[in-house]
């Protein structure tokens, strides 16, 4: 199989990202190009960030608390595992059909996909902290809240951030099909093939892939910044 035709189609896709192209259905109006690509990229980042923030606000305190108390393992781990089985296509299609379209409806739906990894990893991360360390902190007069905030959370950061990264990947991936529910993300290029053509479809796929990798990379960097220096020494 020759690799040339595939490479040629990628060339067309990259052109699509930077210069507007003729479309078959818009009646001469050009589609694609840098400004539209940027607009859709920003929209996808926006809905991803909102959904991730929502998932974090709802889930992180719960996961940390359950881990600290050592209670609710079935909820934290069981729900976490079961949550991974939610088919994202059904979620988005159902929200659109039953609840409604638009950012306000899609954001909570995407947040649901972020809940399982964050909940499980927050619970497991805190649970794994050496109980002797926690007892020592208690002996030094720390309140339970201080123990969570200043002992358990810092030591659990690698695991907790692992969950956040998993959530971010799931959310940004599903944000790609958000156009099915009326939020125009980069998925618009991919799914509206008759408007944007083959080049637009590939351009959308390239941009989504790059965005996911950038988010993953950014969160990996953040994780390194958040991990205390003492813990880095231990793993080195």
């Amino acid at each position: 199989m020759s690799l040339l035709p595939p490479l040629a189609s990628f060339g067309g896709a990259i052109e699509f990202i930077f210069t507007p192209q003729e479309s078959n259905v818009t009646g001469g109006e050009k589609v694609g190009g840098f400004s539209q690509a940027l607009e859709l990229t920003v929209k996808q980042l926006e809905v991803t960030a909102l959904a991730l923030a929502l998932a974090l606000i709802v889930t992180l305190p719960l996961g940390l608390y359950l881990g600290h108390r050592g209670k609710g393992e079935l909820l934290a781990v069981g729900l976490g595992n079961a949550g991974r089985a939610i088919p994202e296509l059904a979620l988005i299609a159902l929200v659109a059909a039953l609840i409604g379209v638009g950012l306000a409806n899609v954001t909570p739906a995407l947040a649901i996909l972020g809940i399982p990894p964050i909940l499980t990893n927050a619970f497991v991360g805190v649970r794994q902290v050496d109980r002797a360390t926690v007892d020592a902190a208690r002996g030094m007069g720390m309140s339970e809240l201080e123990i969570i905030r200043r002992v358990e959370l810092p030591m659990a950061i690698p695991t907790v951030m692992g969950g956040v990264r998993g959530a971010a990947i799931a959310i940004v991936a599903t944000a790609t099909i958000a156009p099915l529910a009326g939020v125009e993300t980069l998925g618009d290029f991919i799914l509206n093939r008759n408007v944007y053509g083959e080049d637009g479809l590939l351009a959308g796929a390239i941009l989504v892939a790059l965005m996911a990798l950038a988010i993953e990379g950014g969160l990996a960097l953040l994780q390194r910044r958040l991990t205390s220096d003492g813990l880095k020494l231990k793993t080195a």
Partner: protein
Amino acid sequence: MSSWAPLAAAGEVGGDFFRERDSDSLPCQARSDEVFCFNWARENLDRFGTPTVQHLEIVALAILIGFAVAFALALLAHRVRWLQPPLLAVTGVLYTVPSIAFFFLMLPVTGLGKDTAIVVLAAYTLQIIYRNTMLGLANVPASVKDAARGMGFTRRQILWRIELPLAIPEIIAGLRLASVSTIAIATLAVFISAGGLGTQMYGANLTFPTSIIIAAAIVILMALVFDGLLLFAKRLTTPWQKARLA
């Protein structure tokens, strides 16, 4: 521009999903506002048979291929240590790229259809299975390996008879994670005309909540069955874990 237009080029996927169907006189399968239509469900359950089989086929092949490749890579990296960072990075990229984007990136190479779906989903599982296999191998206590060496085991015997059996819990944990996620993600294969249960969630001829709910329920059930089977396989292959608990 309308927010959604038919995906005619991609096969049977179509766009009358959000068209207003306002007549109350229509039976509920023709309306999109009914949450669950039991009549339709009773009469149309058979139409989920073929998509379920297709879904199962895509997922089973993807996991099988993913496992074979990831396992081989793990054994290689176990022997050739310097391969570990690059392998983690490469499988990490394959894991991070959203499947829906990956499907379309593969289109110029493998075309529409289930081959593309299988390749992409197999690539997606690599990271999870590879990482868990490495973790399992790393968790084998050095003292156990020393004891085996003292008993005259060769390096190969240590790997196959000591290290790998002891790594089974982690390996199966990886397979469970990989299979549950893959079963859910495989619904997106509808966008590259690969069939599967996604066709009953999003399609031209039947896109209303009842169908989405039934298809989603089958997906979740399939994930539970895979998970249960793998858990059972772990029990069978690691009898010592039960002994320890007792």
